[in-house]
């Protein structure tokens, strides 16, 4: 989970001009100042986002072997990736996602709109894999999904 993106311009002798660009990521909402107690700040524009984010955080509280098959509780890496994903959805009123913890320690977000479905698997290492399903097809798998494509992904989902 990166903190800030930095643009660094180096010139002689040894001077750096640094701009910090805050991306709308989990660290933005965590607001890591002097405070230790971890919170997710709720920006005024969040409406539907609050409930799934609470469910993601609730998944962190699952005990080990919660699924009776040795399943691990989701960790902060999965939660961060999932919250980050939700925070970057710009559509104002999408279908509400289902939040499903995975025995691998990941978190899966599921959306359905008519015959189209999205499954977004967020792994403990922060990586994201997307499965797009239409009707009875087996679906299209997009490993190493780039969150820059979220808008087009949701445009596809909502066009159903």
């Amino acid at each position: 989970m990166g903190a800030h993106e930095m643009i660094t311009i180096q010139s002689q002798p040894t001077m750096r001009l640094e701009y910090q660009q805050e991306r709308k990521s989990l660290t933005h909402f965590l607001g890591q100042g002097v405070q230790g107690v971890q919170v997710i700040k709720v920006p005024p524009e969040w409406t539907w986002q609050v409930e799934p984010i609470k469910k993601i955080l609730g998944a962190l509280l699952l005990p080990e072997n919660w699924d009776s098959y040795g399943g691990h509780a989701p960790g902060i890496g999965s939660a961060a990736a999932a919250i980050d994903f939700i925070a970057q959805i710009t559509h104002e009123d999408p279908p509400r996602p289902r939040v499903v913890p995975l025995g691998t320690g990941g978190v899966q977000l599921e959306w359905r709109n008519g015959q189209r479905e999205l499954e977004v698997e967020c792994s403990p290492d922060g990586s994201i894999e997307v499965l797009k399903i239409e009707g009875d097809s087996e679906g299209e798998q997009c490993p190493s999904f780039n969150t820059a494509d979220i808008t087009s992904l949701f445009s596809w989902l909502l066009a159903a």
Partner: protein
Amino acid sequence: MANQPHTLRDFADPPVVETVLGVQFAPMPFSIPHFGLYWEQIRSEFPQYRVLPPLGHVREQFGGPSGGVSRKIGIEVVQDPELRCWFLDKKGNQIIQVQRDRFIHNWQKISGSEVYPRYESVRAKFETEWKRFREFLEQGGFGKPEVNQCEVTYVNHIEYEKGWKSFGELSKVISCWSGKHSGAFLPDQEKVTLNVSYLLPGNQGRMYVSLEPVIRTRDAKEVLQFNLTVRGAPSSSGDADVLRWLDVGRQWVVEGFTDFTTDAMHKVWGRTK
């Protein structure tokens, strides 16, 4: 500020979830290896660590149209990567935060069931660890830190359904919030975020009060986070003056918290004085 009260107002069950006492000093050439050497000295009590981005160098400014804070920005000569290290005790309730220009001690709730240990205990711990850190700096040839700011922060989590239900009832929590409008068009507020600052007399410092809705990660609960931060310069870098300033900061936090909130909420929190 009116007459200084002889005893501070107090609560049996305040909504405080974290206290932070910290000092800022002129930057020292404290680099990556020194974090490890310092950690060796405290590791038996603070066995966990985390690495985070550093906090900015901040100094309260006074005078001029809006006073405010100066932050170091723009061009700087950087030789080593800057970072901040957290050293946590076994349960995570105590944190020591160190960077090349800051030393901070936090007490925080982890499980939520901990009882606030009270300022006297937190202050004593800060004093012990600050002294230990200074000794480490002197032994390492860094000299004495020149403290230019002290800071006290209390983080409070005000839970819904305990005396109030929604932002439409914020006037039940915040004494200076009427919630009224001059007409009848607007509905109740959906969300409120508030930021207020107060000047301490004699330019001793400034208090910042912030209120915002948050989701607490430890239990996924929505709460109203109510933070009070007092920041300013002590008269000198000496221990007595630093601690004296922290005491003033704490007084402002406690009295400010009490003034800012309603009598109804004081009953919920068991006001004793």
